[in-house]
């Protein structure tokens, strides 16, 4: 089952500038998917499109089998915690839960109350006086107690200190385990994603560079190092993600479905952080050539 499918999805925000272009995505249900990319790569745009806050300029996006923002049925299926976790500063914690209860037919009041108790939030405290971590926790509580099928989180831990971040992510994982909901979460902090995500989407320059299950991605990417040499002559089925040369040595990041047997190379594994950084730091080598050919 697919929880988010995008076909040639694009959003243009001025005449020439695309916030997102030609986006092809197919995120299966049941994953905690991490969305990474540099600032301005289109992460928030993609999440806003998925939540129905924005309408695509071109292409289509389908979330939980429906068009985002198309009506209450669709809204019930998708939870969204926007960047900076906006809350009503003048309303108390309890009033926020009441708001959630009155606006969501599937609201789980028990769950919300238990979470607030466990986090240690004072129900009578105004949201405007909460710390960043508490705000994020309250926003997450509202998002989870709504009982959506897919929860979209835009940089939920960006403003949090390491401890609050760990608590937040642990809570998120618990909710995922209990409710079996899917999550799509953007973050700069790859280490955090590494801890919780089993699916990865990498956006660079308004385009999807890499997508897939973390396990598979790690299995097919390898770090090769060996004496300095030209790297145009790799065998079929192997694609260079990045290449770095020193005077004597060449280091490659290679994507290959098959095992690597070249005795000249020392083959190493990559961590998720290495992998993401390789994709973020190198321009997409094949694309310009392809466009010229077309």
């Amino acid at each position: 089952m697919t929880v988010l499918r995008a076909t040639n999805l694009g959003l243009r925000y001025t005449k020439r500038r695309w916030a997102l272009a030609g986006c092809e995505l197919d995120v299966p249900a049941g994953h905690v998917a991490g969305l990474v990319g540099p600032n301005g790569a289109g992460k928030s745009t993609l999440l806003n499109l998925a939540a129905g806050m924005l309408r695509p300029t071109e292409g289509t996006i389908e979330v939980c089998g429906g068009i985002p923002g198309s009506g209450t049925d669709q809204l019930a299926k998708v939870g969204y915690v926007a960047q900076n976790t906006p809350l009503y500063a003048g309303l108390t914690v309890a009033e926020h839960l009441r708001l959630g209860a009155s606006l969501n037919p599937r609201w789980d009041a028990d769950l919300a109350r238990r979470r607030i108790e466990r986090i240690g939030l004072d129900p009578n405290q105004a949201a405007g006086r909460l710390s960043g971590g508490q705000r994020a926790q309250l926003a997450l509580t509202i998002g989870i107690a709504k009982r959506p099928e897919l929860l979209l989180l835009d940089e939920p831990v960006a403003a949090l200190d390491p401890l609050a971040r760990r608590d937040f992510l642990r809570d998120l994982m618990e909710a995922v385990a209990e409710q079996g909901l899917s999550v799509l979460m953007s973050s700069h902090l790859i280490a955090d994603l590494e801890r919780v995500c089993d699916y990865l989407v990498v956006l660079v320059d308004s385009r999807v560079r890499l997508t897939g299950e973390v396990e598979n991605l790690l299995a097919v990417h390898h770090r090769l190092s060996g004496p300095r040499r030209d790297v145009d002559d790799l065998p079929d089925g192997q694609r260079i993600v990045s290449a770095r040369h020193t005077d004597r040595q060449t280091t490659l990041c290679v994507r290959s479905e098959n095992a690597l047997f070249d005795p000249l190379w020392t083959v190493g594994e990559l961590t998720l952080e290495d992998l993401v950084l390789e994709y973020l730091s190198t321009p997409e080598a094949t694309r310009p050539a392809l466009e010229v050919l077309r």
Partner: protein
Amino acid sequence: MTWLALRQFRAAGAAMAAVVLVLVAVLLATGLGTTDYTQLDVVYTVTLIGVTALPVLIAIFVAVPMVTRELETGTHSLVWNQTVTRKRWLATKFAVGLPAAVVAAGALSLAATWWAGPLDAQDAWNADAVPPRISPAVFMARGLAPFGYAAFAYALGIAVAVLVRRTVAAMALTLVLFVAVQLAVPFLVRPYLLAPVEETVAITEANVGEIRGTPDGLESVGVIEPDRAWTLTNETVDAQGAAVGSLREVAGLGCLTGPQPVPPAHESLVGCLVRLDELGYQQRLVYHPDSHFWALHGIEAGFFLALSALLAWFSFRRINHLS
């Protein structure tokens, strides 16, 4: 949704109610059994300003922030992602505030109408006469029209807020647009809401109330206007009924044509009026008499309610384009 909107409206609504209640209380206290209004010109003026300003004040301080504050603080993305459509969110903003605005402005207006009733009923020659209640200066602070103004101002505030998105800018634009409409309506709309009374009267020494001229001669005359009426036209017409621009161009008038002493001699003025009458010139009067007051109010309130509906329709169309 309604609970949230009411919760957000609570403070503003209470302030609004307090202002209206205080003003109504002052009107009741000073108006009950009063026959002598000579000491009450401050109350009269405050009432006039209060009723005129209340609709747009509600629009600026209640309607506009209701939308823009959510857009500015980002809470719209919280509430729009609960199981509630944007249209319903917007509908609640209207449902909670608009009736309150209409009731507040209407109640104050009716109280003012009652309070000023004896004053408004005075004849023009009375020593402390005030402008007739049907004249533009007073009309918008009396009767039924403020119900419509309040609905219009509120819908305008929401529509501008949806369009502009920033609190201060939306407040300013709402104020400017509302004032522009209120200035334009008395000239461009209200005279035509109801067929005015037209009459043509002879020009005599007794009924001429105004003679205008330059040192070069007679310019125009005006007859005494009907009491407690809103006069739209007071002009001289020739025997065929065509309006005369300047009396200096009247052929054969032969009086007050050259340079004149200031003021001109009484006899020559009277002679001039007699001569005008002899040549078949008359005076045409177009006016809304006091009896049109409530009918004009009803129609104008309806006109503004229709404008409000149009603005609401616009807001609902725009809301899905917001992000």
